[in-house]
């Protein structure tokens, strides 16, 4: 089917990112669903991707990262995260935080290495000793840990790799937080958890108000001749601020009540108890499953089984709990093929690195003995590159609120009743 006349948009809209990726030497273009080109075109319009899609993608990458200590693969994951974040983040305040996650990641690595250097873990006969720290004598009952001593290259490297893996997980979470609007993510919560989402939203908007209130009162305190520190100042500042906060929350509660918050459907005590039971069971199952899936030692059956059972129980609880809430959602984020593509691209890397088939699983965790340059397993590397497709599959983010559109004109204010005063300037 050829695009209808007068619709040149789709091809133009698709091409730039695709071209950029192709020139970067990566794999095939994003999967095209069996829709018309026209649907594809409208899908490329700037919009915010479903926040859950970003979270699933990031979790999938985190899963992949947790499976490997191959520095090359970890570096690739870092690169993919950085690439996608740069391509698809918005101008919003929360989207400027990726730098801090990177800093935090670096700190994790540094701390890890520092600990390994300070607390000697023993040096094997064939190790390359880098330097030796003076050894601190420890009492006999404390002989398990040695402070100071010789530091080998192998120990430092293993600390760096351990740290890098942890840092990678951290950056995955950071990327999800940067890419997905946290408030929209909360809106996705099922009806039963709606109150939780509201509480977080309110807290997020009240926190800056509280800070502002403290600053205002602290400043005003000087007007009465008081200092800004000390127990007297504490009371003089805390009392007005708390009064303020209390009054504000009462007014907010009144406003929410008057606007229909908390209208509930029918819910019996039995159904409420059942909900709670299902939820607790489900959460336990999820915990077990997560441990089984991510921990390398547990049998795979426990992980998958626990996960599935937990998810089913939770789902049941949410459906049951959501039934008593009658509420609709304004402009819910759609789930279209772009969301599937993003989640899929992440899932590929998680699956390939978890299964360990089609390549040598040992290449994921190269040994430091003997010390050698790690090999790059082809399939996992490609799988991680597939995750980078998310940057192309996701539609470009919409222009942020910081950039007002051209239609933003000041509201015409009604003119004063008397246009000019006769004789006013005499």
């Amino acid at each position, binding site marked *: 089917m050829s695009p209808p006349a007068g619709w040149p948009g789709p091809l133009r809209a698709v091409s730039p990112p695709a071209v950029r990726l192709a020139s970067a030497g990566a794999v095939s273009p994003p999967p095209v669903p069996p829709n018309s080109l026209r649907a594809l075109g409208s899908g490329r319009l700037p919009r915010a991707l479903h926040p859950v899609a970003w979270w699933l993608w990031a979790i999938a990458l985190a899963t992949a990262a947790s499976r490997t200590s191959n520095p090359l693969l970890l570096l690739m994951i870092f690169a993919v995260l950085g690439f996608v974040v740069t391509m698809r983040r918005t101008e919003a305040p929360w989207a400027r935080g990726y730098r801090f996650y990177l800093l935090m990641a670096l700190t994790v690595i540094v701390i890890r290495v520092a600990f390994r250097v300070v607390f000697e873990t023993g040096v094997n006969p064939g190790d390359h000793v880098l330097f030796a720290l003076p050894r601190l004598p420890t009492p006999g009952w404390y002989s398990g840990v040695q402070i100071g001593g010789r530091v080998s290259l192998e120990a430092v490297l293993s600390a760096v790799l351990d740290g890098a893996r942890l840092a990678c997980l951290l950056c995955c979470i950071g990327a999800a937080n940067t890419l997905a609007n946290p*408030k929209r993510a909360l809106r996705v919560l099922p009806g039963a958890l709606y109150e939780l989402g509201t509480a977080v*939203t*309110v807290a*997020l*908007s009240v926190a*800056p*108000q509280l800070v502002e209130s403290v600053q*205002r009162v602290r*400043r*005003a*305190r*000087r*007007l*009465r*001749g*008081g*200092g800004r520190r*000390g127990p*007297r100042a504490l009371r*003089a500042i805390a*009392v*007005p601020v708390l*009064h*303020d906060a209390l009054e504000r929350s009462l*007014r*907010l*509660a*009144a*406003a*929410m*009540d*008057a*606007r*229909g*918050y*908390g*209208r509930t459907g029918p819910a019996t005590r039995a159904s409420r108890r059942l909900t709670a039971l299902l939820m607790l069971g489900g959460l336990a199952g999820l915990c077990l499953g997560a441990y089984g899936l991510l921990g390398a030692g547990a049998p795979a059956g426990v992980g998958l089984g626990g996960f599935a059972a937990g998810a089913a129980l939770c789902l049941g609880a949410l459906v049951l709990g959501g039934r008593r809430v009658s*509420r*609709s*959602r*304004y*402009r819910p984020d759609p789930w279209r093929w772009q969301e599937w593509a993003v989640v899929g691209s992440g899932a590929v890397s998680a699956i390939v690195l978890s299964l360990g088939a089609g390549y040598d699983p040992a290449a994921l965790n190269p040994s430091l003995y003997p010390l050698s340059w790690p090999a790059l397993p082809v399939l996992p590397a490609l799988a991680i590159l597939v995750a980078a497709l998310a940057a192309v599959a996701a539609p470009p983010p919409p222009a*942020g*609120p910081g950039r*007002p559109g051209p*239609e*933003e*004109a000041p509201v*015409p*204010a*009604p003119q*004063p*009743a*008397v246009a*000019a*005063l006769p*004789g*006013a*300037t*005499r």
Partner: protein
Amino acid sequence: MIRFDRVSVTYDGAASPVLRDVNLDIDEGELCLVIGHTGSGKSTLLGAVNGLVPHFTGGTLAGRVTVDGRDTARFRPRELADVAGGVGQDPQAGFVTDTVEEELAYTMEQLAVDPAAMRTRLEETLDLFGLAGLRQRPLSALSGGQQQRVAIGAALTAHPRVLVLDEPTSALDPASAEDVLAAITRLVHDLGVTVMLAEHRLERVLPYADRAVYLPGDGTVTAGDPATVLARAQPGPPVAELGRLAGWEPLPLSVRDARRRAPALRARLPDPPPVVHHVSRNRPGASPAVDARGIVVRYGSLVAVRGASLALYPGEVTALMGRNGSGKSSLLWAIQGTGQRAAGTVQAGGTQAGGARPEGAQPEGAQPGGPATGGARADPAALAPAAARRLVGLVPQTPADLLYLDTVDAELSQADKDARPEAGTGAGTAADGRPGDAADTRADGAPGDSRPSREILDEIAPGVPPDAHPRDLSAGQQLALVLAIQLTAAPAAILLDEPTRGLDYQAKAGLTAALDRLAGRGHAIAVATHDVEFAARSCDRVVVMAEGEIITDGPAAAVLTASPTFAPQVAKILAPLPYLTVPQIAAALGQVAAR
């Protein structure tokens, strides 16, 4: 649509009911104005309509309130949300979400409105309130007027039959208030919503009102035609007071109405008008109580005050006007020394040693409680807080920020202690006061200068109960309390930041009288205000700021009649005569009659 059937409301622990045997019938599509001063039960009346009284506030409601046939005793506010929407004074306090679009959708989400219908309604509301360009904006980035429009819009998206608005413009500057009131009248006319509105700025909505409800304060309610009700309602807008004074029947409700009747009155009035409030005692060559030069205040890249110079003279009341964000507050705070100041100098304090005091101020200046004299001049920012406040006192925009004790009396005695560090515990001042400050030595030399705060408070606002909790006082009483606390330090200059916010006509008149007396005692006074009528009644001099610069500085009569934006109602009615206030006319008519 709304029916009150023998309704009485008594709050827990209150001796007498707030509303007593109220019978009221409001028809569909009416705009009903609720008039009365603070504490007369306006909010209770309005809260009873959307069920917040008594479900949320507590208290006992006797009788029956029905809205669109639903008895509010049996329906909780949330179950009335689809028939009655409500908006309060402070829109920000009611915001649940953080962007315009989500806020507008919130009520509909709660009512489970179909998503498609929600989308269209929201677009309509955006257009109706002129918010289309702001839809993605965070609510905190909006101006007060825009926020209030969002709040009204959010209540309206649920398509309620009744909208209850409790002083929606009391915290707004005039331009924003106009926006909001225009939106309200549009809504009454285009959508046929029944609106109950409590409002201080009556003049703008009065012409559109179908009915007025007056609460005199004793629990009773008088309802009827606006002109008739207003004739009885004691404090009214200047146009009504002028009409009452001139004996116009029926009372004019708008400037236009009054202006058409004015020619006869204009012919009787002498020109120039008599002076009713105290005369500025400022003489040429007098030295200012505060001399601020080249003040610059900047917050990051934002320049709030751009090289403003302002001198305040003893015995003179100066109004600082200008739109929100024009730098009024920043300038006042910078002068007081607590706010930040990037450049400029401030010299404050009594007149220079040996300098001639303005002659007119001499008798008053000798009174106890006048500003201390004879001290060296100093920059308040360079002094310890306790010393700075003896040079320049400031009453902030939210006076309650300064109150932290449990009773009015405790606050007052704390203020007395703070004002005389050598007599009281003085812990606060001793801890951070630098010994040897010019102002400290001055206070030691002249302790008689500061009067007990109770005396000051009784003079400003008689009858503030001593054992009341400061937070329970009305806005006017709170302001008076804080002003009294600041005056115990006997500052040479006293600055008030937006004192008229949320004050009713009565409280404003009280403040005017208080400022008049303080100026008579020789204090230099500066008031940042949006309120043109208040400035016309209280101030000798008007300074207008825009974008951090002072653009006009001159006598009140000249500045206030020079432009329609700043002209008080009386000036609009009586132009070209330079009358500004109703008391002036009363005095003039008295003179004419005496002749």
